């Protein structure tokens, strides 16, 4: 008996194999191509915000400044200067009375329209102002400088003055509270479930429940925060405390799941060796299992926290998107966070805010990606194969 193979069918099968393989590689490239386009687009829109246009003006300090701050500046140039600058001139004079009657040459912030024009973006400058700006630029009286204000200012209604400092501080508060509540509770719960839990119905429910919590939409945690922490317990709305507690509950299952995986990876031989030397169950856990699984626990925690501080939806619900100019003074005062700041800026109608939004996104992504990178490095450095 001989086997007869039709060469055409063989070729067809071979082609199908090639197609299938190509398709699977294409799927991976889709993710890669999206990442490239995405980062290129965000950087293209945002990198200009790290420079800000400044304008050289002669400021003449007179008594009139108290009534009309703009009178200090040449009236031709005054409309180009940011209102945030003219607003602080009287204060500046009050603090330095010796300046009265003198004239000072200063580099000050130009307003957002001038800034957008200098950066070659759409703006609402009048034709007369456009020629003036171009002339001044040619004469070197308008320059682009590194935008330190973006990192040292809070939010502002003037795009050229808006910065991320208050949001960054709010994010730090939130991170601290989230960590303080979710890390100990998560690790303790995971230790109990892996090392001490009896195999009974309650523990089965707890396990299903943790996996389920990890997949519940974050917005529902926001509803929990609103109903329980704000309405029921009476914590102050928009505060970092409420936001941190809400995010802690959201991060808890992530930390529990990661810690359990790390604990489970420790081979039983370690436990048995310690028990054989007379250690108690808790001594085994505290002196051997926990130190050995710590890298895994920290990796999971960092990834969980990175996810938490990138989260916006629950914070929207508990009112952390308010317009907040100053740094929060404590965990109970109104605060905002980076993602919420990005959301607020993205819904502003002024075009100049788009650039700020992208710059905020760049900062947020740098923070989150470096947290993830630290987690991955930690994992690669300390992960042991038993």
């Amino acid at each position, binding site marked *: 008996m001989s086997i007869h193979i039709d060469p055409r069918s063989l070729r067809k099968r071979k082609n199908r194999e090639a197609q299938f393989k190509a398709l699977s590689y294409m799927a991976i490239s889709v993710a890669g191509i999206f990442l490239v386009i995405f980062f290129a687009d965000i950087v293209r829109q945002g990198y200009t915000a790290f420079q800000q246009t400044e304008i050289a003006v002669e400021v003449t300090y007179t008594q009139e400044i108290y009534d009309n701050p703009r009178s200090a500046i040449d009236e031709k140039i005054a409309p180009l200067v940011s209102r945030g600058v003219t607003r602080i001139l009287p204060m500046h004079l009050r603090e330095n009375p010796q300046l009265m009657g003198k004239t000072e040459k200063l580099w000050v912030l130009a307003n957002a329209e001038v800034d957008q024009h200098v950066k070659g973006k759409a703006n609402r400058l009048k034709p007369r102002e456009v020629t003036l700006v171009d002339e001044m630029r040619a004469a070197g009286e308008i320059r682009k400088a590194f935008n330190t204000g973006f990192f040292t200012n809070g939010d502002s209604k003037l795009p050229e003055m808006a910065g991320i400092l208050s949001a960054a501080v709010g994010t730090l508060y939130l991170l601290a509270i989230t960590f303080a509540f979710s890390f100990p509770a998560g690790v303790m719960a995971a230790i109990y479930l892996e090392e*001490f839990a009896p195999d009974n119905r309650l523990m089965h429910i707890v396990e299903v429940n943790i996996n389920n919590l990890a997949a519940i939409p974050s917005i529902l945690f926001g509803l929990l925060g609103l*109903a329980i922490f704000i309405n029921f317990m009476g914590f102050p709305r928009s505060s970092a405390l409420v936001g941190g507690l809400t995010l802690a509950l959201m991060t808890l299952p992530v930390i529990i799941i990661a810690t359990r995986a790390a604990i489970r990876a420790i081979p039983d031989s370690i436990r048995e060796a310690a028990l054989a030397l007379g250690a108690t169950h808790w001594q085994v856990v505290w002196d051997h299992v926990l130190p050995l699984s710590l890298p895994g626990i920290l990796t999971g925690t960092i990834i969980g926290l990175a996810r938490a501080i990138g989260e916006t939806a629950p914070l929207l619900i508990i009112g952390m998107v308010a317009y907040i100019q100053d740094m929060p003074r404590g965990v109970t005062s109104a605060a905002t966070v980076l993602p919420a700041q*990005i959301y607020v800026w993205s819904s502003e109608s002024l075009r100049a805010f788009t650039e700020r939004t992208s710059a905020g996104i760049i900062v947020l992504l740098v923070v989150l990606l470096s947290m993830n990178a630290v987690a991955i490095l930690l994992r690669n450095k300390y992960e042991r194969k038993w």
Partner: protein
Amino acid sequence: MTTTYLAQYLFAGFLPLALFGYLAGRRKIRVQQDPNARYKASENLFGWYAVTRMLLPAVIVSAGATVLDLFDLMEVPWPMVAATALLLGAGAMWIGLKAINPGLRVRTALEKTIVRVLLLASLISILTTIGIVLSIVFEAVHFFRIVDFWDFLTGTTWNPDAATIGEDGSAQHLFGSVPLFAGTFMITAIAMCVAIPVGLFSAICMSEYASLRVRRVAKPALEILAGIPTVVYGFFAAITVSPFIVRLAESVGLQADFTNALSPGLVMGIMIIPLVSSLSDDVISSVPQSLREGSLALGAYPSETIKRVVLPAALPGIVSACLLAISRAVGETMIVVMAAGLQPNLTWNPLEGMTTVNVRIVDALTGDQAFDSPETLAAFGLGLVLLVLTLCLNIVSLTVIRKFRQKYE
């Protein structure tokens, strides 16, 4: 005010007492032990023992008072609570300290306490679930007292702001949620059309075809995709993808809104790729190697092996991955808030603006209506449906995947 009070209670009352107990416990055992004995009890353990004795009454009193206060059962003056808690704690500690002698089995007692604390920590997750369910159900009940549940589920007009005149002549708000769910399902469907094929094929590539070098690049790339915050995806969908789709539609002669359902759907699909691919990767790699080798030995190509052997074996796991992906898409908020419309619209055309359940929840709760207005309560009604929906998807998916794991492990 309560916070400063709590801080005072902790730092001025609780911690000094605990520290005192710790030192007293250590001292008590030190004087009782022979300093030259070869085996001695650990002094620190006795210190901790004294501290744990004090914890129970103090915590019970504080927790009890908090509960009474929160439920408005009784007006408790806080100084009295603090004093009672500290006094009872000190009393219990004193009894504990009296009992200390070198023969006392403190380690056993301590470990029992530790395990109890661990048990409490593991119950927090249950409390969280109960909290979510209660907080949503409680407010949703208020809502369904105003709006008929059936009308809510089957009505096709969502118009909470403008009151229309009902049959009996009274003003009625219209809370028909069908257009909202239509929007949610439209966007979810678009997202799944992207995420499931791409995610599944990525998983196949990673586990069956890719060399180590490709994996080393592709895996972090997918992890980065998973690490991008949703508000960033939302911004990208609204600022870059939507205008692109509008221009694309114009070039082929179609009319598209800037708030079209397609762009949040596509971007959400990209966002969910890593979820689908990592879950499918897990299940595909847990299909036993012997099945593959058997098929390859019969002369099948790898693609034939995957299609006829690996995928059917991994099917339950893949289905559960897809269910989790759907649950994720239904619950995703920021992308739709930023890129989808606000106007409820019952349509099959993905190029038109549509709104979704989550958009209306956010809109209702960030608006300036009073908290007990039907507009605000509607958010909890919608939240309830969202909760039930995702809960069902999650539980089915988790059950399927556990059955699958048991089969091969």
